[in-house]
């Protein structure tokens, strides 16, 4: 009989995130190559992990056609040079794709079926624009199951502003500015780069090397943000400045059971405490992290007060604010996205979950005073996902000092 096991996050990496579209750095790079390079980079950093002992490769993508098709977890495993004996599969929960791949692999590890696994995600939104090739069932609208806004993410974000009038555009812009600034200082200190794998990119001017996220705007100002168009509503509140953009990128993480990590001498960056996914009205999908986090905390037997760092995906600033508001956390609370977030570095849908984990894991290493952290994100069609992690470097002494 298989035995229940601890689940640990050994390591995670990602490609630099690019700007989607013809002018973006990855326009001539295949989506599958992006995630393959992430997997290769991950395994190079963890040479102790025996490749032939990897039990599964789960790669998420929202659009699973073209260079994101062909059961991308399996095809990426082959392309990355993993032994053919290592299986793989594709997974999709839109923005929470990579988070779901980690969670589902974690379930398999926790239940003793797997000991080592690779999870991650990729989204090349240049090659696969949001909503391309979808054919929504007419019943959604005919039977008023969801509002028409539900499929336009910006419109769902406007609805958060509607529901919580005190979450103003000004607060959203201020939050967005903070994200840019925190990202800039994290870059300055070399904190983000440590988990990036460089990607050779083909351009009309020859080969280049992507080593940084492409869309950061450290020069952002409140005034600048205030003047941006509101593409989802006339005189609305959601702008390109207080939302994440359209991006290309990929992530990969190595997960293990506690005893496998011990056996192979793998460094443990985080221990999984709990995870949960939850549904909300698709028309206001951005509040999904609230019920998901409630649930994950309940399963973990923890309270928000126990959480030292929150890595919240910044699909939209207002969506982050709605979560913070729910828990009475200040907009500029230093526990929240200390190294900035998706508004600055970008959000290639299905890949982002592991980026949150990478950043949380790196902060855990620096912060023995923090015991628990959260990664959470909202998901299209009205969902939220949350994973709660424990810091293996935690020490009571450090916590007392802090």
């Amino acid at each position, binding site marked *: 009989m298989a035995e229940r096991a601890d689940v640990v996050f050994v390591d995670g990496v990602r490609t630099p995130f690019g700007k989607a579209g013809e002018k973006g750095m990855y326009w001539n790079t295949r989506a599958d190559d992006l995630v*393959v*390079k992430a997997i*290769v*980079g991950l395994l190079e950093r963890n040479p102790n992990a025996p490749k032939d002992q990897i039990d599964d490769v789960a790669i998420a993508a929202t659009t699973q056609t073209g260079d994101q098709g062909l059961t991308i977890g399996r095809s990426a495993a082959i*392309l*990355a*040079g993993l032994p053919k004996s290592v299986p793989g599969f594709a997974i999709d929960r839109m923005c929470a794709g990579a988070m779901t791949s980690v969670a589902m692999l974690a379930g398999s590890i926790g239940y003793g079926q797997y000991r080592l696994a690779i999870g991650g995600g990729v989204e090349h939104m240049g090659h696969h624009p949001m909503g391309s090739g979808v054919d929504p069932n007419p019943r959604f609208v005919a039977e008023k199951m969801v509002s028409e806004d539900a499929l336009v993410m910006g419109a769902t974000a406007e609805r958060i502003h509607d529901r919580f009038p005190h979450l103003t555009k000004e607060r959203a812009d201020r939050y967005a500015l903070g994200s840019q600034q925190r990202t800039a200082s994290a870059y300055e200190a070399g904190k983000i780069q440590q988990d990036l*794998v*460089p*990607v*050779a990119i*083909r*351009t*009309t*001017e*020859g*080969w*280049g*090397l992507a*080593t940084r996220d492409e869309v950061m705007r450290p020069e952002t100002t409140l005034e600048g943000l205030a003047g941006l168009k509101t593409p989802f509503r006339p005189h609305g509140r959601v702008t390109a400045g207080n939302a994440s953009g359209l991006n290309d990128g990929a992530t990969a993480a190595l997960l293990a059971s506690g005893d496998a990590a011990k056996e192979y001498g793998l460094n443990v960056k985080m221990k999984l405490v709990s995870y949960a996914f939850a549904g909300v009205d698709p028309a206001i999908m951005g509040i999904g992290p609230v019920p998901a986090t409630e649930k994950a905390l309940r399963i973990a037997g923890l309270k928000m007060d126990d959480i030292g760092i929150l890595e919240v995906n910044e699909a939209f600033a207002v969506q982050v604010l709605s979560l913070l508001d729910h828990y009475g956390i200040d907009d500029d609370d230093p526990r929240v996205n200390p190294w900035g977030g998706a508004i600055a570095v970008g959000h290639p849908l299905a890949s982002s979950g592991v980026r949150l984990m990478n950043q949380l894991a790196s902060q855990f290493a620096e912060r023995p005073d923090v015991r628990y952290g959260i990664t959470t994100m909202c998901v299209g069609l009205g969902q939220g996902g949350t994973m709660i992690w424990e810091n293996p470097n935690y020490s009571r002494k450090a916590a007392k000092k802090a």
Partner: protein
Amino acid sequence: MTDYTKIDFTELAGMFDDEVVTHSYVRDIPLSAGRTLALVTLDNGRDHTRPNTLGPNTLLEYAATLDRLAERAAAGEIHAVAVTGKPFILAAGADLSKVSQLPNRESGLRIAQLGHFALGKLATVGVPSFAFINGLALGGGVEIGLHADYRTVDASLPALALPEVFLGMIPGWGGATLLPNLIGIENALKIVVENPLKQNRTIKAPDVLELGIADVMFPSVNYLEDSIRWADDVLSGRVKVKRPNEPGKVERLVKWDAAIGIAKKMLQSRIGTVPKSPYAALELLKAAKSGTREEGFAREDEMLADLVSGDQFHASIYAFNLVQKRAKRPAGAPDKALAKPVTKVGVLGAGYMASQFALLFLRRLQVPVIITDLDQERVDKGVAYITGEIDTLLGKGRISPDEANRLKALVHGTTDKSEFADCDWVIEAVFEELSIKQDVFAEIEKVVSPEAVLATNTSSLSVEEIGAKLEHPERVVGFHFFTPVAVMPLIEVVKTSKTDDATLSTAMVTAAKLKKNAVITADTPGFVVNRLLAVLLGEAMRAVDEGTSFETVDQAMAPLGLPMAPSALLDLVGLKVGAHVLDTHHAAFPDRFYRSENLHALADYGTLLEKDDKGKVKGFDKGALKIVAGGTNPSTAEEILTRLEDGLARETRLMLDDEVVAAAEDIDLCMILGAGFPFQMGGLTPYLDRVGASERVFGDTFHHPPVKGVES
């Protein structure tokens, strides 16, 4: 020493006015510790089917790019330079599209000098230089990298080679000088001389690393990223590059000249002394032992200028284009869409030749192959040969066990011809006698569908006559292989006056699937290759019968530079076959082809050459010499050569007049692929033109203008 900066290359660049320019793009790559690598990408903007090539305009742009980088290096803006290619391709070497039109030796010299001028700049850019050999690298493509300080190679590299000697040149943009000083003289001999002469063999990434051409190899998946990181490590001193094959003092003092000497002897015995380029390469490699790079480059310049203005180079380029282009689009081939599917193959006969056919069809078409013969014993023997060969392939790891099972399950032997009913391609390889062949075809026609193609491997009979007794002669085609079947690349596809387009197309498509080059010939005696070899053997035997020694005959034909002398050719094909070939051609054209009673006597006697235990030829057999003794009118070597050249010119002219093939080019293609006639002869007709045989025989040349060198 040549000051390349003082040479004006604009005229040369102007001659290549429609060059597909391979551009040199530069992007800065950030490295650790604030360093910057300037990465040069060579890209002609086309996909991988049009590889990067290096013409004068490409080289001038590359040179200008490196000049700018040298300035930036001096200003401290960049700390390293690397050169790489577009996906799958670094560069396939010099742009040869115009080299056969260069007006004089001077312009050839300019090409050599421009290569040194441009490629040499990587070595003097002022910061460490790297070549990232990311894909196909041939000739000048390799030499780009040789001028760099360090090299990496992509593990999936399909091919790297210095094929110049194969084309009648030498690696004259630094290769002949730099390579031996990088990887040692013996390795350099392999790359520069040996491989080009082995059907232009190329090497793959592991060998590139092993020989020391590259310092390190990285897997394809992350090749460029890894190469950049490695360059960073080299710059920062984290990686120290070791070159175990780099020649030391001892090698220079002791090994170098000896290796050259051995190579020269081997060349002389293998290919004779007619081809110039291998010996020119040896001379350069020998001289590369000492002195400066610049002196080496100057020697390369002069040597390259000599060669590219000479006859052999022009003939070689002509031959190369035939093999590369014309062979792939055979003249007179009907639309491929007309070809009928071949889903089951029948082989009539189970002897050695038939079994070889069966094996080839089996491996290449991977369809059921059925063989038959007069009795079960012969059939079993044929099947056993085939399955044995499959096991050999399996044992060598050339095919997987699954593949071996698949192939074995596809082959079947029977004496029951009715099992041929669903074959759509039947090839016969029975005894070379008209009535027998007619009968087996007539018998099989009763069984197979009216559309099934009937192919004959006859070498001396009329294909049309073989099909004369058939109800559907339009599906009969000649399909003449050369032995050994697995190795020789040519098939003469013989079209009779009745052969229909669907049948001809099926034959051409099938030949291509067998990975053979097919040339369409008319149904005339000997088709192309045997008819011309019959001229050669006939003139040889005529001279012998008249009292000339075999030695003199062999020497007489040596200036052609053929792969073997007439005596060796007779020994290879067999004296009986030789006599038979002369007989059939004499019977067809009694006034032009010689038949030799002596050759029949020799065939009965059985031996011409005296060999030692290992099969090495020691001389002529004494008994054989007795048989041919008695002639009283010996010829000189010159007389024999002239007779041979004239005979070949006459026969070739007649074949073209009779439209045996579409053009002189097809004759040459046949002789190159079917008889191993050398590139430096251009097959046959360029040689006949340049030695004056065409002029002597029919007062003109085969080619206008003739394929030959330029005035110096």
